[in-house]
């Protein structure tokens, strides 16, 4: 397309977009005046109904638990797809005999940086576990905590410039984590049916509001999502890192 035609197309689109935006923004409620009925209702009933003090987590894993299952499986499917693609490329390449050696794990990064990286792994994992398990009490939950957990591996890979530790790769720990997390959500959902209620209904004892083990299935679902997200993100990063170490992939 010629430059003038492109500019003309952009101008038309910009004018239409500006008109729609102005119209939409003019109809918004005034700043700080929220009109949502559901939000106000949930603010009042959640602690009493679900014994969860963080309303957002209760909404995510209970009132609209089915949507969260969909979101969880979007991440699951995309990470599995990516891993399959990357591994297939690598398998093709590794049939060539001259690649047998591969690159070494530690390619001479700053040793102090590597040390700091290794030492920060445990604190990051503790923080991640905290964020996952306290989702029903304070802001946080499975999605956020899961990424924090995965960032322990990201930190390790960035600071040491190496590959995923061999013990994790050999035993398929990340794949297991992701699978258990994704499957666990459905298992807890189906368990609701066996308890005589509906799919994903909160059938577990609710406990005392504000205690760590409270809110029934909210904390359980949040925890399995934490496992799934941690596994999925860590697996994606580990596969990319592995890919970078295998010489000649995709050339």
């Amino acid at each position, binding site marked *: 397309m010629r430059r003038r035609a492109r500019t003309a197309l952009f101008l038309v689109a910009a004018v239409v977009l500006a008109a729609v935006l102005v119209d939409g923004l003019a109809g918004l409620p005034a*700043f*700080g005046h929220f009109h949502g009925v559901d939000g106000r209702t949930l603010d009042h009933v959640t602690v009493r109904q679900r014994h969860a003090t*963080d309303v*957002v*987590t209760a909404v995510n894993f209970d009132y609209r638990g089915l949507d969260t299952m969909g979101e969880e499986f979007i991440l699951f499917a995309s990470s599995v797809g990516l891993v399959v693609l990357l591994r297939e490329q690598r398998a093709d390449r590794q049939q060539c005999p001259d690649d047998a050696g591969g690159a070494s794990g530690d390619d001479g990064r700053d040793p102090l940086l590597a040390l700091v990286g290794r030492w920060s792994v445990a604190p990051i994992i503790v923080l991640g576990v905290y*964020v996952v398990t306290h989702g029903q009490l304070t*802001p*946080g*939950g499975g*999605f*956020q905590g899961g*990424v*924090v957990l*995965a*960032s322990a591996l*990201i930190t390790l890979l*960035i600071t040491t410039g190496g590959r995923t530790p061999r013990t994790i790769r050999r035993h398929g720990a990340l794949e297991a984590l992701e699978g258990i997390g994704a499957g666990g959500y459905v298992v807890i959902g189906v368990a609701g049916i066996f308890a005589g209620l509906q799919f994903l209904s909160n059938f577990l004892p609710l406990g005392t509001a504000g205690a760590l083990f409270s809110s029934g299935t909210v904390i359980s679902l949040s925890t399995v999502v934490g496992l799934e997200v941690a596994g999925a*993100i860590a697996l*994606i*990063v580990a596969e*990319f*890192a592995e*890919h*970078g170490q295998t010489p*000649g992939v*995709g*050339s």
Partner: protein
Amino acid sequence: MTALQAVILIIVAASGTAVALTRDPTRQVILTGLFGLALAVLFFVFQAPDVALSQIVVGSVALPAMVLLTLRELRRRASEREDAE
């Protein structure tokens, strides 16, 4: 609107513009991380701590890490192509 809210809105607008105006992808990734962090503060100031936490982990950890990994992969392929020629 409080002064704090106004300040953070301006910071978000400025850092978002900076991301869009940066041409070098590596610098852009770092700026995207900072922009994500500013957004997280914005959500927190506007009383949405859950969203702020999601924004921190996705905008400052997951997204920059993936873009950086992709950039490394692209560079490696480019240098291999040069070697082959």
